[in-house]
């Protein structure tokens, strides 16, 4: 049977149960190693893909949205026939301007955070209820 593992590298397929973070890091390294052993053409294609992704990075942001909001955004984007990221950007201009000019505030929505990186969390449930009541 052919051994697909790149030379000099231990496969981690038969590991006992491990922490998901450890598993994902090991997988990432293994993928890079596999890539290093691809034919030259394939390697350069992958490299270009990575460079293209790298160029888009400054425009990118990863957000955790409430499921309901995500679903509604997806539906709206589909209905309007526009990319979801452009729709989100379109919708954000006004509240961001208002927040910068202090015509709206986060006061009343802030709660203590369980994460040392942030001082507070925002009570999104309350926000959703208030918006649906107003409209």
């Amino acid at each position, binding site marked *: 049977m052919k051994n697909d593992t790149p030379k000099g*590298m231990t496969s981690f397929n038969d590991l*006992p149960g491990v922490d998901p973070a450890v598993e994902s*890091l090991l997988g990432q390294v293994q993928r890079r190693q596999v890539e290093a052993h691809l034919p030259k053409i394939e390697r350069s294609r992958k490299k270009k893909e990575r460079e293209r992704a790298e160029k888009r990075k400054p425009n990118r942001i990863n957000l955790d949205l409430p499921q309901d909001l995500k679903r509604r955004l997806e539906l709206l984007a589909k209905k309007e026939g526009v990319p979801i990221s452009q729709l989100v950007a379109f919708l954000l201009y006004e509240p961001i301007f208002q927040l910068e000019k202090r015509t709206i505030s986060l006061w009343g929505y802030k709660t203590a955070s369980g994460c040392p990186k942030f001082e507070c969390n925002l009570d999104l449930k309350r926000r959703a209820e208030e918006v649906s009541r107003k409209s």
Partner: protein
Amino acid sequence: MHTTITILNQKGGVGKTTTAVTLASGLARIGYQVLLIDLDTQGNVADSLGLPHSDDLRRLLSPDLRCPLDQVITPSGFDRLDLIRSDKSTTALKQTLAGVTLREYILADVLASAAYDVILLDCAPSADLLHFAALVAADYLLIPTRLDKLAVNGVRDALQTLTALKRISRCQVAGILPTFYERVTLESHEQLIHLAQTFGRLVLPPIPQDTQCRVATRFGKTLWDYSPNAKALIGYEHGNRRVGGYLQVLERVKEWL
């Protein structure tokens, strides 16, 4: 009732103090009352937080002084985080304690009534008396290790010490923390696989190698304050997630409390 976590590896330079300071300050920031005790004669916990060294530990444990806990505790300057500092006098303390009976229980006894949620014990890189006392006082053992052969041997030694103290210690191995992880080097990868194969779920998310840790120490600040977006805190980018880093480790530690 507090939870005591000992941070220990007999190998030096594996990130014990950085781990102790970062986890202690992280836990304090999210609302836990934390006491961090430096058991190392080098007194690096104080350095890491921009404080002078002191013989707090000797005054607390020395049989002829035995100062009460509240008289040796120093506020760290951060909310909810207190310290018991150490310095060269800890060497003399160890010599003094060598003749004391039931010396392995000395830390457990003085900490029994401490009003904290979490107590973190930062051990010295040597198998000495305070090392044993820390294992007897602890509920959990966290073993940071560099991803190289010698440091991984240190993990084995730490586990052997714990086994030797089984009769008098209720301490459980909570995790093995790979530090100085470099995802671009094959050796880091191989050693991480080796750890994961041997210890499975005990292996915690690795801490990326990050110069910001050293810089933060130079300024006497915690990583949370000096560089909240440091790789060592937030881990590596992986698709649309982040993996590894103290932030993820803190989530695991919260499960033990």
